[in-house]
């Protein structure tokens, strides 16, 4: 998978506001769009001032011609500044970066379950689009705390993506965790591959389900990133490869790993 260490300045060509806290920006970035794969990400400069200092990582949420989309949740200073940007504003973006989901390895015409928690849905939409091109059968499990955390549900419905959803407060869909919903539903139509993105607790649970049911799972991890391209060694998590456990850089070796490679507790 090609990761490109090049800074692009792309204009914002569309802005969508999804509820109070979620935003979608379309950016003109032909080079990134051409090369990007689901699960890869971009590093976005939310300010040209020294505050906030670092770029922020965002998954590529979609691709339309020479544009890429990012979909993000406002959680702190950087995402808050980003949410104030307007159509026409230029944005500095670095990417595509990292290794995404392994589409190539025989996922064609498979049954793939995508599990997304909250903003973890961002890369899964792009993934669903690409899987659909491969004639795979895709089901999305989309969970959040309450209905306002699963804003894209209406969009998925409209685009006829099979989506099952859960909320912890029961305000929409299944009441409980998205992993509980998945466990309940998986037997009716067992997938041959799971792809998931969300908070660590959720991903850990997905790992357990994957192991127990012998279904391979690809998980997209998050970590605080200083650079996004392998230079700072700041983003490491413990990864087991060929039985050696090591701190590995999420940005370079990931962000997507096989579930069995991730060492959760130590």
């Amino acid at each position, binding site marked *: 998978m090609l990761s490109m260490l090049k800074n692009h300045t792309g204009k914002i060509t569309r802005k969508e506001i999804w509820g109070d806290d979620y935003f979608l920006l379309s950016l003109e970035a032909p080079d990134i769009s051409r090369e990007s794969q689901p699960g890869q990400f971009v590093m976005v400069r939310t300010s040209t001032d020294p505050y906030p200092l670092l770029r922020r990582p965002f998954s590529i949420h979609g691709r339309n011609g020479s544009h890429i989309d990012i979909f993000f949740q406002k959680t702190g200073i950087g995402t808050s500044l980003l949410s104030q940007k307007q159509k026409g504003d230029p944005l500095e973006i670095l990417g595509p970066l990292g290794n995404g989901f392994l589409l190539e390895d025989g996922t064609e015409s498979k049954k793939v379950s995508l599990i997304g928690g909250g903003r973890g849905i961002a890369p899964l939409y792009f993934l669903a689009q690409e899987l659909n091109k491969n004639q795979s059968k895709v089901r999305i499990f989309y969970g959040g705390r309450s209905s306002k955390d699963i804003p894209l549900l209406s969009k998925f419905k409209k685009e006829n993506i099979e989506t099952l959803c859960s909320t912890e407060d029961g305000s929409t869909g299944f009441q409980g965790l998205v992993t509980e919903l998945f466990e309940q539903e998986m037997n009716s139509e067992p997938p041959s591959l799971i792809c998931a993105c969300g908070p660590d607790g959720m991903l850990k649970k997905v790992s357990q389900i994957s192991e127990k049911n012998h279904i391979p799972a690809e998980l997209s991890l998050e970590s*605080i990133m*200083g650079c996004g391209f392998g*230079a700072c060694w700041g*983003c490491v998590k413990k990864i087991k490869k060929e039985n050696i456990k090591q701190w590995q850089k999420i940005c370079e070796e990931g962000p997507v790993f096989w579930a069995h490679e991730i060492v959760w507790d130590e």
Partner: protein
Amino acid sequence: MIDVSVDLGFLKLHNPVIAASGTFGYGLEFSQALDLNRLGGFVVKGLYFSPRQGNPPPRLAETSCGLINSIGLPGIGVKQFSHEILPKLTGLQTAVIINICGENREEYASVADYLDKHEEISAYELNISCPNVKKGGICPAQNPEDTYETVKLVKNSCSTPVITKLSPNVTDISEIALSAQEGGSDALSLVNTFLAMDIDAVTRKPKLGNIMGGLSGPAIKPIALRMVYQAVRAVKIPVIGMGGIQTGRDAVEYLIAGARAVQVGTANFISPDATLQIIDEINAFCEDNHIKKVEDLIRTLDIDS
């Protein structure tokens, strides 16, 4: 055409901008983003004799205009470095500087000895100032004798020029600068990061796995610039300044304070080609201000009026 070259005595740089250790990998990682030969030089990430894993995550915390890191010098060790990386660094038209670390004086000397007489290597930078390794962030550069002895032992172990990298976590930077000079250092570079910490108020946990880490970035620039100014006035050997440099103007301020070259650290994370932008901005600054040679800026602080 502005003459941007600078002369450190033991080393001529085609411009004063060097990428700082630990923020530029082994240089190669950046070759997609820039032509390494356009740099004054680059310092590779800290190298111990043996391979090391580094500290547990989280390793980074962003603060107001700053970044705390507790990376803890993970790395491949000197053997793997000289077999796998060094050959790829041959033939570069830029200064390649090796950042040397050690658990004790002898390890610094072993690394220096092991890599000596490699003509790809322009100089060593002795990292006696990393706050991320020992408990409580203590390092040799916080003590004049320790600084003197470490530098001296390394100088006796190699013929490669030695730049000693100083810590800002000291009462009197001039004293340490002098010790390094007395130990035989060919130049000084400063500053390394400031020992710092951050706390998550809600979880009541330190934001870094290692509790404390080193602060870098624009936040530290005014303190670092002061220390460079003081160090320059304390010693005769050349001083390389760093700390929070993001723009050509920042770099020029360090030159005016007396630095003969500068290093750029954290800025590389924000823009992988930050060093090149800074070189371009230094050129533009000289142009705008009718300065023909960058060396004419060095140590020209006007303190009489």
